[in-house]
């Protein structure tokens, strides 16, 4: 298929294996196929594109969306009945809440004329969540062809290896297919594919080359790299737009973009700041000093008593309760709500800054309980500003 190669890059051998497994429309195929590989290695994309291009009857279900048995089974049945009855616009919604009913209804739905004898494919994405649902679901889907006596193949897509799926007493073993990570050449090819039309392909390819050089050692995830490519391209083009350099002046472009890429690694890769904030930051072009994250950590200046409350909360959260007697004479393990309004206000503001979180129910009678959520470095910095040696009071450091 010529257009299939253009739509799916760098996955020729996997596509060939899948196509040969599917075989002709009316032939039986292997009852279950398990495809695994890292995130952004193209499992979902390749499977969807292949099934759509070859126009095979299929149902695509995501196990994160359909997290209960009922949702999963009903979605499969309803989509199948839509597939098989394309002539009449309306078909009744099917309800199903056990796997037994599913098998029975499945047999009925696939008797339809339009699906006659063709292999029906059920694709279950994020299949690792199936293990947390009812215990009979995974072995049942593996054997669906045998249980329903119909021409159906179930494809499982997951990041986790097959050995972790196998039930204790064994099951029907699927055919396991691995999608290896893209090599640096493949990544280059795929990323250069979506170049904006205003610039030439070579220009964009050089940019991708630089980007990969900086990020490849850290990250090979295609989704992350694409996100970074899109965000940083305007900055890369800046000298050309402003007229300071031509498209071929690679050294100048490199010198311009390199510090930005290094900074991008710290914040955008972690997705701590959103892409719109990042773009605004680029446009401001102010002194690229301290980069601000979304969290309160870097730019909060707390009042004096709030700092002590925070330190006390940290000690209460991470020291076991029995050691409190050693450290303190009067202080209790938990912070209790008192009538002292100011203290309550301060606690509430700390919760808003997400430095404390509420643990336990709202309606607990003896006061809400809080837990401190800051890291050790942060609390040490705070403690230093009030001249309090927190290390002496921490159980883990004795």
């Amino acid at each position, binding site marked *: 298929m010529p257009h299939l190669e253009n739509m799916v890059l760098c996955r020729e051998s996997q596509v060939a294996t899948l196509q040969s497994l599917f075989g002709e429309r009316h*032939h*039986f195929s292997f009852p279950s196929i398990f495809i695994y590989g*890292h995130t952004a290695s193209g499992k979902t994309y390749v499977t969807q594109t292949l099934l759509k291009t070859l126009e095979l009857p299929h149902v695509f279900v995501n196990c994160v969306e359909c997290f209960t048995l009922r949702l999963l089974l009903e979605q499969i049945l309803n989509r199948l009945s839509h597939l098989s009855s394309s002539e009449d616009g309306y078909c009744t919604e099917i309800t199903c809440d056990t796997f037994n009913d599913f098998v029975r209804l499945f047999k009925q739905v696939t008797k339809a004329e339009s699906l006659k004898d063709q292999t029906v494919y059920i694709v279950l994405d994020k299949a690792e969540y199936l293990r947390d649902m009812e215990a009979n679901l995974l072995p049942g889907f593996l054997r669906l062809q*045998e249980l329903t006596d119909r021409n159906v193949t179930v494809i499982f897509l997951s990041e986790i290896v097959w050995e972790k799926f196998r039930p204790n*007493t064994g099951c029907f073993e699927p*055919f396991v297919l691995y999608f290896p990570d893209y090599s640096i050449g493949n990544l280059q090819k795929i990323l250069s594919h979506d170049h904006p039309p205003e610039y030439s392909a070579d220009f964009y390819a050089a940019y991708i080359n630089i980007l990969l050089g900086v990020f490849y050692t850290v990250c090979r995830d295609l989704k992350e790299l694409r996100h970074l490519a899109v965000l940083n391209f305007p900055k890369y083009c800046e000298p050309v737009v402003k007229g300071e350099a031509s498209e071929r002046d690679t050294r100048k472009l490199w010198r311009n973009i390199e510090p930005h890429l290094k900074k991008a690694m710290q914040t955008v890769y972690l997705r701590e700041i959103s892409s719109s904030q990042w773009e605004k930051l680029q446009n401001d072009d102010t002194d690229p000093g301290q980069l601000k994250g979304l969290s309160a950590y870097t730019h909060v200046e707390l009042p004096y008593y709030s700092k002590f409350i925070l330190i006390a909360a940290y000690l209460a959260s991470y020291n076991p309760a029995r050691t409190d007697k050693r450290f303190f004479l009067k202080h209790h393990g938990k912070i209790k709500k008192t009538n002292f309004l100011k203290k309550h206000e301060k606690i509430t503001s700390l919760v808003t800054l997400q430095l404390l979180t509420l643990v336990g129910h709202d309606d607990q009678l003896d006061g809400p309980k809080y837990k401190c959520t800051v890291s050790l470095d942060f609390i040490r910095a705070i403690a230093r500003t009030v001249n309090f040696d927190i290390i002496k009071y921490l159980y883990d450091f004795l």
Partner: protein
Amino acid sequence: MSNRKSKNNNLMHAECLSQVQRILRARFCHQNPHSNLFGVQVQYKHLIELLKRTAIHGESNSVLIIGPRGSGKTMLINHALKELMEIGEASENILQVHLNGLLQINDKIALKEITRQLNLENAVGDKVFGSFAENLSFLLEALKKGDRTSSCPVIFILDEFDLFAHHKNQTLLYNLFDISQTAQTPVSVIGLTCRLDILELLEKRVKSRFSHRQIHLMNSFGFPQYVKIFKEQLSLPAEFPDKVFAEKWNENVQCLSEDRSVREVLQKHFNVSKNLRSLHMLLMLALNRVTASHPFVTPADLMEANQLCSMDSKANIVHEFQKFVQRKAHSVYNFEKPVVMKAFEHLQQLELIKPIERTSVNSQREYQLMKLLLDNTQIMNALQKYPNCPTDVRQWATSSLSWL
């Protein structure tokens, strides 16, 4: 003229191959009943005797068929039932009920399914009326009213029998075995399971009503017979329309079974697992490579198929992950702590490491103790295969893993 003839030939060729694919795929994937039983003749005779006694002579009995996964239990029972149905005097009377532990996960559903399959009066089409107690009493009455001479014999086949033993009070099993002991409607209860310790799962009152008859399927054939099975599975049946092609194909299969490299592949496969299911997967993968330009299976195809079957999955995943190993060398970037934490979390999501205790309440996330779920040799193998691995990472791994 010759062009047209060769085009015709090609067309017929493609037609033939499509037929071949259809037949062989149905055999490998859909587990069509085989014409031959390999190494289980004795067990088959035992089973068919039992079934005949129920169907023709009206004697109730119960049996458990035990064997590892893929040893042919379902195939055996299907074969026996097919033969039973071909016997004229029995076929019009026998009622069959097929239950599966994966589908009927509690007794209520199982009972409804039995009522549905037997088409009793309280089932209209697919819907079954009445509560669990009503259904049960209706069914038991219907079965108890009969006698040996005038009622239809009922055969209950329970697949994944061990799952039925986990139902509450084992009500269904108790009642079925109870009926098979009392002399009323001739009933045959056949359980299929992969657990050897199935009898220990049964309650005492259920076990005492069971006849303790067991048929074991132990895949007890040797390698020469395995090769024979391979040949038979890959050959085309005698009813194939194009006789010339079928003969050529079967001859090719005969050559394959005598080829040394093919025998090595089969020996490796045999050493890992004897059962026919894995053989079917191997043959299916080899069959995939048969196309119009490559009309016969070659030894190379089988070797490729073997490679595809026996990949070590953890090694694949691990070797892609070496970049997330923390770097001590100064020549590489010192990554910021949050970047390393993100990588660490990704490792946890891939289930290569696991926290030792479940709760993370008492200690912070960064300081939680973790357990590595991989072996040293797997890590070393992965490092060998990893493309573009920095040499200092490799040296660090070899030095720290070598003394273990």
